[in-house]
């Protein structure tokens, strides 16, 4: 049956080590090899229970860098881990929210010595919204990768499609304000690697959402032929397009980020979503 040959007992101990190292105190990106091991673990075991247990017992709350790195790690596992990780994450929302204590929104009332307080707070807001979205729309995977059946589904039920698109747009807006906050917290004289590493999953996620919205909106225009009803979504789509162009442009100047992932290149102007247009550009690849 072509399965991998994994020593399940050994990997349990390794997971603990990987979580500890991914959330270490150094102000750097969470080391990819350790994050990768956490992701691979959820596929091998088809479970994320040990990941959650493991990260909850780490003393990450004592340090703002560690908390921030833990959030990046969680985000990556939600994106790339086995789909069960998204489901099992729902039971850990209150733990995520509890991490807000100790940041500027919480009892300590400070930004933290290195200014991660507001970033932590915004990250938690984002992850909680993301999880809420996945709870309401279980057909989406962690990176919103394009699947044809989703747009077909929305055509069959335009009301549901409308709602899904507007939920996706809300997430996209949150990504946008979060990325702006991250950029505004860059500190000169440092390499900002830890902050930039949080932009990596945001670029990937925003592009997945963008592709979905583009194809769903286009599909709905084809079926409904009702330009008027969809015009609010179109206006919002155009505005988000311009903001994304700007976001990706700024990311393309960050060498650490561009060495890691390909930053998407969007056309300067939003693609035409109306099916009547014979010259409508192809869906984003």
């Amino acid at each position: 049956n072509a399965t991998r040959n994994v020593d399940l007992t050994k990997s349990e101990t390794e997971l603990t080590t990987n979580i500890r190292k991914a959330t270490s105190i150094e102000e750097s990106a969470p080391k990819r090899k350790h994050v990768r091991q956490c992701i691979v673990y959820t596929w091998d075991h088809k479970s994320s229970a040990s990941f959650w247990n493991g990260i909850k017992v780490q003393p990450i709350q004592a340090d703002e860098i560690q908390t921030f790195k833990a959030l990046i790690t969680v985000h990556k596992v939600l994106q790339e881990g086995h789909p069960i990780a998204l489901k099992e994450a729902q039971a850990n929302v209150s733990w995520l929210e509890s991490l807000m204590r100790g940041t500027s929104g919480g009892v300590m009332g400070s930004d933290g010595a290195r200014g991660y307080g507001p970033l932590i707070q915004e990250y938690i807001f984002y992850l909680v919204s993301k999880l809420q979205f996945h709870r309401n729309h279980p057909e989406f995977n962690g990176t919103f990768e394009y699947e044809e059946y989703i747009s077909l589904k929305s055509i069959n039920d335009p009301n549901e499609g409308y709602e899904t698109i507007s939920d996706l747009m809300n997430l996209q807006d949150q990504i946008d304000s979060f990325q702006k906050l991250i950029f505004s917290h860059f500190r000169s004289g440092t390499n900002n690697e830890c902050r930039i590493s949080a932009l990596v999953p945001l670029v990937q996620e925003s592009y997945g959402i963008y592709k979905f919205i583009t194809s769903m909106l286009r599909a709905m225009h084809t079926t409904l032929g009702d330009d008027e009803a969809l015009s609010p979504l179109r206006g919002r789509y155009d505005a988000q397009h311009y903001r994304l162009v700007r976001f990706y442009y700024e990311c393309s100047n960050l060498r650490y980020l561009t060495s890691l992932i390909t930053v998407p290149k969007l056309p300067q102007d939003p693609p035409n979503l109306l099916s009547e247009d014979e010259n409508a550009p192809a869906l984003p690849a």
Partner: protein
Amino acid sequence: MSGVLRSVKNVTKGYSSVQVKVRNATSNNAWGPTGTEMADIARITYNSSTDFYEVMDMLDKRLNDKGKNWRHVLKSLKVLDYCLHEGSELVVTWARKNIYIIKTLREFIYLDEESRDVGASIRSSAKELTSLIMDEERLRAERQNRGSWKSRVTGLEDM
């Protein structure tokens, strides 16, 4: 040095001849894997299921190796790419089922002693391979038409 150590390890650890072939093709040497090595391994995947699993388990181990052994990872991607084209259908099934192993290498990072980012070639190989494995039609076509992909998986020089 590493070559001598490897042949000692091959004996002391009791590796089978199949495992030795894969280990040699995906070693830390600055050259290889050669076309002959890869063709050999691809052919083995058609043998018994024991042989098939010995190949895949060893590739799997190499793919998950640590950063210092980045050449193991890169060469295993090359060998896997070759086997996806010339090897048995089981290789395709294995790769689909375990695609997360390859997918998660798309962000592989390792800086060598001179702070040179040697992960770049692994990242691009992993990206290329991921999209190939997910594109059933393309893989099907490439398995039938051998010429079009060969340039990508011929021997690696000057690493």
